[in-house]
């Protein structure tokens, strides 16, 4: 005991006035940062949160059904329902419309189910082919060959007063919610 010096009132147990104000100042700035962080983070993630709240999908018309002859597959375009003033041409979207019977349709996304390149329809061989990595699909959109693991994405459709409308508004990607909207097709056309 005697070898140890007598402890003076330690500096780390008492809080000086300045030290207290510094800590208070740091706390105050932390609070200010949090107040600002809420709108900053909200802004940054608005494209995600908006998709959750009201959603991006809505019903858009593709045109009168007599534009699409029975038994054929035609290219159609629509304007994406969610538009910003700087979007230019990018909101115009293409899709493939296959009319099976009078009121039976299939509307395929233009994007390959592999990595999203635009697929092209070949009437004679009844195939959709992708120029990027060589994915191919049968006329009903089911996978024929190549790297895609599934068939083409399909838009839900409705025929109202002779007008074909689809539910669209979101880039179809293999993992996106839209993929779950579409049911898998049997493997062969």
């Amino acid at each position: 005991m005697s070898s140890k010096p007598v402890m003076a009132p330690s500096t780390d147990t008492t809080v000086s006035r300045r030290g207290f104000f510094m800590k208070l100042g740091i706390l105050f700035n932390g609070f200010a940062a949090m107040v600002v962080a809420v709108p900053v983070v909200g802004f940054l993630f608005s494209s995600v949160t908006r998709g959750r709240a009201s959603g991006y999908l809505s019903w858009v018309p593709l045109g009168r059904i007599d534009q699409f002859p029975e038994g054929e597959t035609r290219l159609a375009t629509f304007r994406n329902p969610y538009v910003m003033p700087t979007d230019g041409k990018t909101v115009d979207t293409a899709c493939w419309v296959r009319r099976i019977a009078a009121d039976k349709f299939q509307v395929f996304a233009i994007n390959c189910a592999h990595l999203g390149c635009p697929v092209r329809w070949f009437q004679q061989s009844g195939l959709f082919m992708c120029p990027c990595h060589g994915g191919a699909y049968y006329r009903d959109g089911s996978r024929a060959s190549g790297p895609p693991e599934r068939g083409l994405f399909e838009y839900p459709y409705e025929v109202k007063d002779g007008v074909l409308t689809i539910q669209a508004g979101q880039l179809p990607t293999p993992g996106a919610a839209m993929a779950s909207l579409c049911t898998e097709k049997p493997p062969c056309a």
Partner: protein
Amino acid sequence: MRIIKFGKTIGEWFDHRLQLAAPIREAAEHPVPRNTASWFYVFGSAALTVFLLQLVTGILLALIYVPSAGQAWSSLQALNHQVELGWFIRAMHGWGSNFMVALVLIHMVQVFLFGAHKFPRELTWVIGVFLLLMTLGMAFSGQVLRFDQDAYWGLGIGASIASRVPIAGPAIVKLMLGGPIIAGATLSRFFALHVFVIPGMLIAFVGLHVLMVLKLGINEWPMPGRVVKRSTYERDYHALTKSDGAPFVPYAVWKDLFFAGFIILAVAACALYFGPFGPTGQPDPTIIQTAPKPDYFFLWLYALLSLLPPSMETPFLLIVPPVAIMALILLPFLSGEGEKSWKRRPIAVLTVLLIAITLGTFTRMAQFAPWSPHMNAWSGDPVPDRFVHGTTALERQGALVFQVKQCRNCHSLGDSGGKRGPALDSVAVRLTNDQLIRQVIQGGGNMPAYGNNLSPAETTALVAFLESLHPPGQAPAQDASREVVLGDRDHKEAVAQR
């Protein structure tokens, strides 16, 4: 004399306030081992030079470029055709980008082979790994700012890859695109990344990287047998700079200066000779007659995504990049000591060679893209004469079916047509009549089934044509048991006639 004296006075006035002259002189004249004054040690400073060049040309481009999805493409056209020398600045920036990626990679390989990532330069290496990732980030975001068809569909590919992340995938896609689709917000956020966020981080990290080179010293020329030990290395290094050292300026710096000048001229020469990159067609998603391809340094990925088995693709994309980045970061901690010289590190040399050859092969393959169907081959590449010369009416009808049903998009004849499927110049040697019919109707082996799209007559004609495809002196394949089992005399005669 008076002017020089005046200049000196002004200099002293500033330095009295800034106090920068002494540290700058100290940094410039710090002693480096004499053997580091080598042409092998110039790639880092050359990468820095090109980065500075990119900053300058980038700012110049920003004077004209409009980061709006509706106008970006036309502003690039204006740069190419309307603004004086705009094409040259675009070309410098594009070629500068390629040079920068190449120099960063070469610098990295040199550092690794010379053991410069070992103690005490581990953190310099780790920051270097981040600099590589940022450089690649700049290359990708730069390709997006060249807002053309390739950029548009390239973003779609990026989104499709990002969407495969479990659970968070769809949210990541919307965050990346700034909305539900590739549109104005997408371009704007890639502009912010390319012009503010990544360059800001690059400047900070390059500063740290260079500071650490100054503080820790340039890696001495590796000698086989001179082994790095944590306990002795720094003492030995300082002894070396004392016994066999020379001031960095001017002893070693002149080689950096010459190489930097050469690189700037090389970028300018490429820009002048090859011109700017694109833009290709307008970023209009309703124009679907396009075959997007990534820029040079991402071609290997394009090849990989075509050649991987479909079921392995998602696991590969989600697992391999993080593992590769972690391996690069951990490398100096796992091999922080030991031999530096490549002459005593065969596995290191083989690893570099393996990676280089793999990436090189994939890149080369992606330039030909044999996996992509030739979308216009069926209407654009006729069946070469020699394949229909002296054929029967049925076989000619088959050649017509072959053409009209777009078989040519994936199969070549006489070297024209797609390479997705095998060339069919001598298919009759490989497959018998029955096998051909089965393959056409049922597909398989990565070929679609054509059963629903060919009438029996068309199939018969097509197979007759395919059976005629064999070299003159070589008989077509035939099922030896057929004649015995079926007593198929007609078949035998038919074969004998050929």
